[in-house]
């Protein structure tokens, strides 16, 4: 049963990822990406991580992609521009993508079973739905990366504010 669900979900997520890259219309691309995110959320559920699955849908499929759609619609950028202004990035992206795939494959085949089962792994909360376990790990074992991520987000937020202030000053001067 689990295998069947996994196969269908994996197929959907890969197909959506490919369709997202290939579709000409930016809104269609965004929709395929939403479907891909949802499929990934189901994969998380299969890995006994319901909390992560729900956050994946709320944050990525819900909030971020709505923002994407909003920007695409507001700019009227559905069809995109004729030719890519940064031509060199396409080959580089292909090479880097293949490298990432190779690395992932290597890690996967080297370390046998990388999927933790609930209960016996140390870094895995016993009750997958209990946020207490996740919070404890975040604030003890992974405190440094967690705080660094939050500082990074704060800096990005401040950066966005600073950028709008600069453009506003220019408008005032001209």
């Amino acid at each position, binding site marked *: 049963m689990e295998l069947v669900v996994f196969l269908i979900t994996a197929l959907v997520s890969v197909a959506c990822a490919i369709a997202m890259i290939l579709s000409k219309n930016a809104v269609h691309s965004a929709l395929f990406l939403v479907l891909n995110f949802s499929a990934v959320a189901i994969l998380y559920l299969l890995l006994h991580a*319901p909390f992560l699955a729900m956050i994946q*849908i*709320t944050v990525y499929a819900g*909030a971020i992609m*709505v*923002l994407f*759609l*909003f920007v695409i619609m507001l700019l009227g950028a559905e069809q995109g521009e004729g030719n890519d202004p940064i031509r060199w990035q396409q080959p580089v992206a292909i090479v880097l993508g293949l490298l990432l795939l190779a690395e992932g494959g290597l890690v996967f085949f080297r370390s046998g079973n990388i999927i933790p089962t609930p209960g016996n792994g140390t870094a895995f909360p016993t009750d*997958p739905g209990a946020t*207490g376990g996740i919070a404890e790990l975040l604030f003890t074992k992974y405190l440094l990366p967690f705080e660094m991520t939050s500082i990074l987000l704060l800096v990005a937020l401040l950066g966005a504010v600073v950028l709008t202030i600069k453009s506003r000053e220019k408008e005032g001067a001209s």
Partner: protein
Amino acid sequence: MLRVLILLVQSLAVFLIATTGFAYLTLFERRLLARLQHRIGPNRAGPGGAFQPLADAVKLFFKEDITPTEADKVVYTIAPALAMIPAILLFAVIPVGGPFRLLGQGTPQTIGPGLQAAGTPLQLAPGISVGVLFLLAVTSIGVYGITLGGWSSANKYSMLGGIRSSAQLISYELALGLSVMVPVMLASSLNLEKIVENQGPLWNVLKPVGFIAFGVFWLASSAEVVRAPFDLVEAEQELVGGYNTEYSSMKFALFFMAEYIKLIAVSAIGVTLFFGGWHGPGVERLYAAAIQQNSGLLFNLAALASLGYFLIKLIIFLAFSVLVRATIPRMKYDQLMDLGWKRLLPISLATVAVTAIGAVLIGPSVPFLSRLFS
């Protein structure tokens, strides 16, 4: 196999109840609005207008289904479904009543924390450990129907409605999520049944932090379901009809249904999170008596009473929503953004902080306050 069959029947039942609920909510709203405006309202079809929803449905069925030539056909067709599906999905995790006992089920043993285990829960998907997050996730998906409906119609007014909806939903989702966290923190669980059980002694809305959180929740959820006074998405005076201008026949009906079913759903969520869910005077005692006398009949009577309490609370919620629609004019766009970002978000952040401090520091050390923070 049998479990799948039972689930299918249950899902169908939820679907039918939700759509019937929608049909009669429209009648309820039209009649109540008419009363508030010194009119009579639809009263011709059937006794007191009872068949009016049926007549409306027939009318919508037989209208011509139009697709604009310039429209993005596929997206235009799936948009109403994308609006409808999340609206119905919300009902899956809401506990609408206390547990009941099927024939031949073992004797009810315990009361209190283990009450859910004593019978079959009155809920489609019981025991979901992340129930509250499921609700938030599904609500956040709900915006796609409106946004895409507006975009795919190839109509400037529809498009403006769609853009407004995505901006509005992003703005209010944060406040909504934070206000929902207050009952979660009070019950220290994301499970909706546990949140309901936690309110047995005292409803969340009667606790100070819960009261403020409820205020934020109510405003933010009204904005999430684009209900008046937050219905800028379909402002007739500015946008012809808003995102659904080009839609007709059953596609339009689906949008209309989604809107009202979402309203019922968020009202049910409000009842569950802040107004004690199915708790009411006497229900606990009935359950206790049923377990003491080991009586299945009494147990099911208690379940029925709890369902009744839930429905009464839900109807009061919906009536209040109609009242607000009749009395408060639509907001301007800048007022909407101001309220969301400058008022509700800071208030809900502060409430969450106070709840956390209260639950960890004040609650355990000051005994008579502990009930207000748990």
